[in-house]
């Protein structure tokens, strides 16, 4: 293999900080670009996606009514996942009326994780917007031609068709999303010395922790070539952030930008970067549907500006966010957003808003529950008590279950100051609720 490892050595030239100059474009340039793209996206979505056409016809809106961003924000109907699912189930259309069957462009159909139901199809062409945003993120984090990166992923997203890293001259070290792969990841890291890793979710970090505890392998040596790793799937708790930091591995959170593409935080840790040439983002009051000013909490609404195969137009993501359009310290000018949680996950207990992200730190800080596996039992949006189901590791039990229960109850009820009911279960039972990289954080029962 030695002959494969020297490409980085001959790449001594320097590269620009950003893969595409658009990342540092002025606000005026971005606004103009978006205005034109919104007009064409509206026309394309109306022409090719039957659900969009149905929604717009139902509202009496035609693409020709959209001549500016103001027109778009005033007139274009909203779309959400329930509408897509209803269309899918009612019409027998797997894409839920969102697949624009542009002849010759669709290459394959990826799917979402399917945590809460049938996976949603994501038609993809030769290069998807997600690959574009991913490539920019990798470049920002420091991956360059001649490098290796560790790519840990399910096949249901793209299968074996991803080209973007290869086209950048970066080789992907491929791993499945399984704890059993972690020893092989460590071996590959020592052989190939990759620059970056993606995606590293909670269960794999825990598997690595166990691997290092059992094998005695030095994590600092394993990860010494890494400039960072993307963390995704769920919120990142302080314990795991600090744990990986002690290994010399810096984690950056990644999330979906309303199913349009990906978004990652940068080294400034000022929120997720939304590439505004790929997507137009808005923040609305989820009840009144009125626009919410930047900096205030609202629901993220996303419109693709480039995806011809899934032309999501004014797609309500269900994510509660705040948006900041000021330039970032990293040099990029596009908007950032802070993710507070999913609107459908929010519970109001005695008037106090609680989201899974807020609970995580109070669960993962105990040895027995360090995996941070828990569910909020949400029988209604407004409830009289906070009900939690928490998974614990039998092998790490210090005294007995009652003592652990009391410890968790004390900490969480003190933190939230609301009536609390805690149910403890073997964490293996929660893991069965998969997919393996995450469990539903909110359940009705």
């Amino acid at each position, binding site marked *: *293999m030695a*002959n*494969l490892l*020297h*490409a980085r050595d*001959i*790449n001594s*030239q320097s590269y620009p900080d950003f893969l595409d100059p658009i990342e540092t474009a002025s606000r005026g340039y971005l606004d103009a670009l978006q205005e034109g793209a919104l007009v064409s996206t509206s026309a394309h979505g109306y022409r090719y996606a039957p659900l969009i056409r149905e929604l717009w016809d139902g509202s009496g809106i035609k693409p020709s009514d959209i001549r500016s961003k103001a027109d778009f924000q005033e007139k274009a109907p909203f779309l959400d996942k329930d509408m897509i699912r209803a269309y*899918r189930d009612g019409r027998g259309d*797997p894409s839920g009326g969102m697949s624009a069957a542009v002849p010759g462009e*669709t*290459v*394959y*159909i*990826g*799917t979402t994780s*399917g945590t809460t139901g*049938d*996976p949603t*199809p994501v038609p993809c062409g030769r290069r998807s917007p997600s690959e574009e945003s991913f490539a920019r993120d990798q470049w920002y984090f420091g991956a360059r*031609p*001649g490098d*290796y990166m560790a*790519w*840990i*992923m*399910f*096949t*249901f*997203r*793209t*299968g*074996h*068709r991803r*080209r973007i*890293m*290869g086209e950048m*001259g970066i*080789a*992907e*070290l*491929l*791993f*499945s*999303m*399984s704890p059993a*792969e972690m020893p*092989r990841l460590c071996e*590959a890291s020592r*052989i*190939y010395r990759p620059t970056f890793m993606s995606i590293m979710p909670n269960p794999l970090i825990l598997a690595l922790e166990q691997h290092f505890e059992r094998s005695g392998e030095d994590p600092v040596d394993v990860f010494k070539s890494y400039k960072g790793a993307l963390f995704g799937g769920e919120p990142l708790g302080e314990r795991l952030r600090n744990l990986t930091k002690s290994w010399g591995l810096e984690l950056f959170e990644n999330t979906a930008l309303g199913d349009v593409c990906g978004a990652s935080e940068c080294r400034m840790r000022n929120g997720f970067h939304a590439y505004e040439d790929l997507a137009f983002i808005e923040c609305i009051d989820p009840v009144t549907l009125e626009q919410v000013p930047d900096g205030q909490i609202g629901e993220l609404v996303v419109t693709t500006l480039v995806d011809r195969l899934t032309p999501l137009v004014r797609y309500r993501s269900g994510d509660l966010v705040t948006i900041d359009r000021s330039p970032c310290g990293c040099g990029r000018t596009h908007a950032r957003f802070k993710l507070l949680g999913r609107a459908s996950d929010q519970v109001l207990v005695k008037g106090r808003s609680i989201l899974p992200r807020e609970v995580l730190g109070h669960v993962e800080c105990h040895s027995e529950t360090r995996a941070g596996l828990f569910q909020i039992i949400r029988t209604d949006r407004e409830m009289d008590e906070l009900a939690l189901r928490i998974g614990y590791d039998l092998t790490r039990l210090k005294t007995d279950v009652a003592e652990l229960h009391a410890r968790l109850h004390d900490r969480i009820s003190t933190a939230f100051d609301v009536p609390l009911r805690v149910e403890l279960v073997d964490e293996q039972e929660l893991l069965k609720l*998969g*997919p*393996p990289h995450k469990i539903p954080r909110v359940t009705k029962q």
Partner: protein
Amino acid sequence: MNTTTHPDAVGRYVVHGQSHFFAIKRSEIERCGLAAARVIATFELLPGRFVLTISLMPEIAQFGPFESGVQLLGLLGTNADLSPYEATRVEALVRLFDVAAICGIDKSVLDGLAMIGKNAAEIFKGRIVWARPDAYALVAAMPGVIARRCVELGPVLGLECAAGEGMHIDGREWDISDAGGTIRLSSRAYRIQPVTDLDTGVKGHVVGLPCSCGNRDPLVVLD
């Protein structure tokens, strides 16, 4: 800048229970896709039909060419992981897309379907199913299922055509032999990671006669 000696991806193959890293270029995958397309084409699927590939990300050398062949034929690919946890996805994809063919089923996926209370025979009825060795007999026993074998021979995926006389191996890409009772493999074309006389550990023999599908590539029959 010279990245011609740099791979596009590093997957893996397993021989005798031992995992080995295997580097590959995208151009190699697409080159091998031609032979895969020829095998898939024997089933005469109409363009636009769906084909589900069940594999793991490191199996790029084996299943990447298959996906490339699917695309060359105008078929639409979709994917699930090789895992019992993916049984829900497998069932949903087959139902939603009325998939014509499924490649890469193993016993763990069948177990997963059973765990979620689904009848694999009903799900696969009327479809082409390329099954891995530990699942082949079970799939072949399902009424109405067009069962064919697929086997990983080191970094290569052997795939049966409609005739089902053995697994086709891309003869332009690989030299194969059955010396010692196991299939051995050498690369013929330029590769970023060449293979020389690799003992795949798979017990079988090579059939040199042309397949009745008209393909003159060598066939591997398991012993």
